[in-house]
């Protein structure tokens, strides 16, 4: 049965390669027959890869330990949901997931027949070629269907850290983002190859671009949340190479979301819009190179430590993509000239260029920080590590400017700043100033949190001001009541209001990051059962401890002794929560200890307790942390999701009714 899976992958490699060639030949010879054949090929690839994926799921669910992948990542103790998520626990399955998502997206892209005729075959060729590359990686090196000659009775089991709801959704969402970034890139490359360089392609791929950006962003946030609740070090972002690797394409993608709008609306930024999607796509491949290729030195993640064969293939493909795209951009440079020039620095056009530069700058900083230790080792033989302060100091100032621009840019008009814009800006500026003074009086005295308060308030008031002005204008002209006017505005200008919501989401995230970075309080205490300690506004009482053995036979990764402590959290003498931080000893693992934190969460702050040590007599060491405003990061993520969905929701149906 497993050989069926292997054959499905080999066939999908052959068929996708055929599809890429047929589409390319069809494009050069303007032959519909070839293009249609290529179209059938990508359908066949989607069917084959779906078959392979269902087979792998079937093996995982039914405990077919003869399949190496099933043996390595699951055991009979593992609940169903984690057996399914074992699909993406290793490299082979991750690649299959990526290819599966890409195959489905490709079919959907190809379905739309409204694209310019010359562009479509090239689009098809690019997508099919990327499928070929991913299928090749699996067939050549990482076949998820490799089997043992005999069938083991029990599997090794999943790493306990991966047994978390975060693991169930984080990788698929992230890979959806990686796969989706192939689409804007394919559109750009197709435009370049066909020479059909009108701005139509930007309109055609707008939803795809936002979709890719959203998936990647939400994937990163879920990863941060997972790290916060599972890794147990008290934070959500460590600037670890693996985290950085997914952030870099998102930063470049954010620049592209804005830049694409400039081309659509003003016919500008046309070279940017070829370079940015190419970079975003290549950086998604780079992310795999970081996590799997063994080129980056990482302290936190124990990833492969020497250069893996997959690294060479990825580097070769990246070089091919960059070389090909940039030569085409150079070749077509005359056709890519902007329709307009920026006439004033203080105009919306000017600010959009600034946004591009800032996001690319931030991407560059994270990229350099990620590769710096490896470069230093390779070039100068130095063993160096770069700590989080580098990123905070280098990116912090850029983020401040980006947030400011977010408050200014939507208010001011195209072409140049007008007097009316200035009046509209002065209200939020004044309100932000007042709020900052209040914050200062209330005890926020460090410079960065003060600046952050000021700019976040500025943006929120600026957004509120814009919505209020629209609302009043609508009410004056139509006489609708406020609620009705707001709803019509929302449904008529979905893109604009979606963008406002996304900006609001980012501000909420910024507030959460500022609070938890600057006002985090930690303490290390040793308590005996019955003793208590004061932590901020809370009193934490250590009640009791216990030890129990779980899943002893047969021994797998899921076999463990669980040491648990029970703590009561009081605020103003009333009990608000019971926390059970615990540690488990998994005796079959190389790293047997796994710590599970306990969190009491509220909108104001999180009480985060880690069980650091436990003696035989019950004397326990706790690391207790107060993390202010962390919840706003996740709430901001939700607002961002909602805003993007509003902006991308098809307008077709509503329009049809209006007509």
């Amino acid at each position: 049965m497993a050989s069926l899976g292997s054959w499905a992958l080999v066939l999908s490699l052959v068929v996708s390669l055929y599809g890429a060639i047929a589409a390319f030949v069809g494009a050069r010879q303007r032959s519909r027959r070839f293009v249609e054949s290529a179209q059938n090929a990508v359908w066949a690839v989607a069917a084959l890869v779906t078959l392979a994926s269902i087979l792998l799921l079937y093996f995982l669910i039914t405990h077919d330990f003869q399949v190496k992948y099933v043996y390595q990542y699951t055991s009979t103790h593992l609940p169903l949901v984690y057996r399914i998520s074992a699909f993406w626990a290793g490299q082979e399955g991750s690649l299959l997931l990526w290819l599966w998502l890409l195959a489905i997206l490709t079919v959907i892209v190809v379905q739309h027949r409204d694209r310019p005729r010359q562009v479509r075959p090239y689009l098809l060729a690019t997508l099919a070629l990327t499928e070929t590359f991913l299928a090749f990686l699996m067939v050549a090196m990482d076949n998820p269907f490799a089997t043992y000659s005999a069938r083991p009775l029990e599997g090794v089991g999943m790493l306990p850290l991966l047994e978390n709801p975060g693991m169930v959704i984080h990788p698929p969402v992230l890979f959806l983002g990686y796969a989706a970034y192939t689409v804007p890139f394919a559109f750009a490359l197709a435009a370049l190859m066909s020479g059909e360089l009108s701005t139509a392609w930007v309109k055609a791929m707008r939803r795809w671009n936002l979709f890719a950006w959203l998936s990647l962003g939400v994937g990163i946030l879920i990863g941060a949340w997972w790290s916060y609740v599972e890794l147990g070090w008290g934070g959500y972002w460590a600037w670890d190479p693996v985290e950085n690797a997914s952030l870099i394409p998102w930063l470049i993608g954010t620049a592209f979301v804005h830049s694409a709008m400039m081309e659509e609306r003003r016919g500008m930024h046309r070279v940017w819009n070829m370079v940015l999607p190419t970079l975003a796509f290549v950086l998604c491949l780079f992310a795999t190179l970081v996590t799997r290729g063994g080129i980056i030195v990482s302290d936190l993640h124990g990833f492969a430590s020497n250069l893996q064969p997959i690294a060479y293939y990825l580097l070769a493909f990246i070089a091919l993509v960059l070389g090909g795209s940039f030569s085409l951009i150079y070749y077509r440079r005359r056709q890519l000239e902007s329709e307009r020039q920026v006439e004033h620095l203080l105009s919306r056009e000017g600010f959009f260029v600034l946004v591009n530069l800032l996001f690319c700058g931030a991407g560059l900083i994270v990229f350099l920080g990620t590769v710096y230790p490896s470069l230093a080792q390779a070039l100068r033989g130095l063993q160096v590590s770069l700590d989080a302060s580098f990123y905070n100091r280098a990116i912090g100032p850029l983020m401040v400017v980006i947030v400011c621009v977010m408050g200014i840019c939507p208010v001011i008009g195209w072409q140049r700043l007008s007097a009316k814009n200035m009046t509209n800006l002065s209200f939020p500026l004044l309100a932000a100033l007042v709020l900052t003074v209040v914050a200062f009086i209330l005890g926020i005295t460090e410079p960065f949190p003060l600046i952050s308060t000021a700019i976040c308030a500025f943006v929120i008031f600026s957004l509120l001001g814009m919505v209020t002005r629209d609302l009043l204008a609508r009410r004056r002209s139509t006489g609708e009541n406020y609620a009705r006017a707001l709803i019509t505005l929302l449904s008529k200008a979905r893109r604009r209001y979606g963008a406002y919501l996304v900006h609001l989401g980012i501000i909420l995230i910024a507030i959460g990051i500022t609070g938890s970075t600057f006002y985090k309080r930690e303490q290390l205490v040793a308590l005996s059962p019955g003793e208590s300690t004061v932590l901020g506004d809370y009193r934490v009482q250590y009640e009791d401890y216990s030890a129990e053995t779980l899943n002893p036979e047969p021994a797998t990764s899921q076999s463990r002794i669980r040491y648990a402590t029970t703590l009561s959290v009081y605020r103003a003498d009333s009990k608000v929560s019971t926390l059970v931080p615990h540690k488990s000893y998994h005796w079959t693992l190389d790293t047997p200890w796994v710590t599970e934190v306990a969190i009491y969460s509220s909108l104001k702050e999180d009480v985060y307790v880690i069980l650091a040590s436990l003696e035989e007599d019950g004397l326990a060491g706790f690391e207790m942390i107060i993390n202010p405003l962390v919840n706003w990061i996740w709430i901001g993520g939700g607002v961002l999701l909602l805003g993007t969905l509003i902006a991308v929701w098809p307008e077709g149906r509503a329009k049809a009714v209006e007509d």
Partner: protein
Amino acid sequence: MTELGLASQAQAQGRRMGGRMRFIIGGAIIIVVIAWLILSNIGGSSTYYLTVEELLAEGPSNRLVRGTGFIVGQSIEWDPQQMVLRFEIADESGSLPVLYKGPPPDLLEEGTQAVVEGRYASSGVFEATAVLLKCPSKYAEE
């Protein structure tokens, strides 16, 4: 009519050139600032890895470094009441006492390769603010 048109065209062109110049200068300033942010911070935020041999040869220096060596099993002392951990890291050249205020890491045992971040204080003890133990993980097997 045509003269007027030409004049305004020339004017527009002049404006465009001026705009472009300002624009390039503005862009250049931003790029310089970003480069400065990177270069000025990369040195200050790097911590160098030093082996026990290098640390002993250099002597107490009070600068932030990362010391690497193997844990000496018998030297581990853990005071659960004060939450103070003492141990030694060693290589062929000798051993170095380490003091860490915090719980013992989960893999702390004889022979584990350790990275201790902190300062080699003049008291002759390495005062660590973080102890990292290199663990062979499942990913590394592949």
